[in-house]
């Protein structure tokens, strides 16, 4: 028997012939290889192929899934980034604003009444500039009343929604929509004697900011939060058509929703789950304590707040 390893040149020539189609093996093979699959195999394979096409969902453009993922990532990251970046300053700003306004209110109340609680609040020495402002009650009262009316016109739904949370959270959870409203209400009720519980205080930090100051930022955040939520919903539903249209959409924001989202923006918002009628977003304060949930649903124009539930 010839050893192929010891017959190099001959094998090389044979290999060249074979690769060039000149080897007798090729002709013999073509003559010998005539088998074909039985017809039942053909039928089975073709039926499987047809079933595969019929069962497959409508094919989507290849770019849509990565595009959707990228869009969600961008929006999600920007949202988280903004929440992280802005939560602390906004919170600090809100704390300062709340403290200042509380002192102002206390001063005004102390001048008008002899209520012990009001005096107690006034005892927190106000800064000289604030005291000087408080020394001109007529002009400030008129401005507050004007702001109250303006805010009432701007955001009645927010006031109603936030008033509902106020009933659960106590007096510290003043309505968000109207700084003027809170000022007016302060005159009709005694100032709080005992400090609010930590959770309630944190929950109430954002609302007292005047709506006129909070709306631009809130609208921005609302759009980002809303866009992210909607993208998540569309991805969940694999609605690529709507998703691609959505990328250029501009979501409307009502003043009420803006106020609520401002509240959310001052804290950490995270998606909890998807429910039958919408999404549930959990709100936490800067310390990570659960403050409550917002339930919202996706509508063609954007999204809609369904309920706001403070943590018990």
């Amino acid at each position, binding site marked *: 028997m010839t050893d192929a390893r010891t017959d190099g040149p001959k*094998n090389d020539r044979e*290999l060249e012939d074979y690769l060039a189609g000149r080897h007798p093996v090729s002709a013999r093979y073509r003559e*010998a*290889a005539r*088998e*074909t699959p039985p017809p039942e195999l053909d039928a089975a394979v073709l039926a499987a192929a047809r079933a595969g*096409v019929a069962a497959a969902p409508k094919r989507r453009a290849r770019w849509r899934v990565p595009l959707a993922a990228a869009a969600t990532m961008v929006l999600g990251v920007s949202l988280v980034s903004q929440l992280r970046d802005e939560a602390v300053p906004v919170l600090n700003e809100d704390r300062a604003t709340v403290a200042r306004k509380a002192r102002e209110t206390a001063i005004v109340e102390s001048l008008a009444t002899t209520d012990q609680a009001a005096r107690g609040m006034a005892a927190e020495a106000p800064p000289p500039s604030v005291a000087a402002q408080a020394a001109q009650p007529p002009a400030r009262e008129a401005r507050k009343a004007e702001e109250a009316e303006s805010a009432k016109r701007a955001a009645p739904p927010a006031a109603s929604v936030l008033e509902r949370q106020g009933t659960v959270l106590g007096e510290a959870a003043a309505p968000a929509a109207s700084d003027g409203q809170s000022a007016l209400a302060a005159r009709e009720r005694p100032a709080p004697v005992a400090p609010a519980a930590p959770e309630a205080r944190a929950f109430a930090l954002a609302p007292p900011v005047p709506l006129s100051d909070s709306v631009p930022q809130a609208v921005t955040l609302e759009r980002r939060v809303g866009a992210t939520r909607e993208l998540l919903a569309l991805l969940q539903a694999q609605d690529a058509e709507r998703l691609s249209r959505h990328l250029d959409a501009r979501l409307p924001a009502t003043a009420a929703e803006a106020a609520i989202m401002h509240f959310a923006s001052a804290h950490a918002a995270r998606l909890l789950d998807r429910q039958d009628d919408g999404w549930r977003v959990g709100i936490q304060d800067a310390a990570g304590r659960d403050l409550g949930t917002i339930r919202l649903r996706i509508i063609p124009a954007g999204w809609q707040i369904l309920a706001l539930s403070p943590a018990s």
Partner: protein
Amino acid sequence: MLAYAGGDAAAFERLYRRHKDALYRYFLRHVEAADAGELFQDVWQKLIQARGGYRSDAPFAAWLYRIAHNRLVDHWRRARPHDELPADAVDADARGPESQVEHDDTARRLLAALARLPAEQREIIVLREERNLTLEQIADIQGVGRETVKSRLRYALAKLREAFHD
């Protein structure tokens, strides 16, 4: 394949008609007829399921036979989990009624000689003869280098030549 992946069932049928005989014979050269039918059907089923993953930068035949090669190796491993690839294929005459075509003596001798080749050498001959795949494509399917394929092919040709000189 891209047309089929896009939902065109008729495109699959054209593809199937073009490749089915060669693929069926590829399995017939390596296993018994009953197993060949099963493996043949498995490969097409796998291809149907993986249609979305087909990339047009590779020839379809190379893709198809890579799937077929892997399926064949799986089959052998299941049948003989402790063995390497079988040294010999089944005898050409023992393949069952579908393959009992009326070969003349030369064809019969070639198939018998082919069946006695080691599987990796036999596969090279079959892939060359059935689909005219290049050495590089065969190397890719077998997961070896081009020179290894050339070496295996040299051995295979030498053995086939000897079979006809005996």
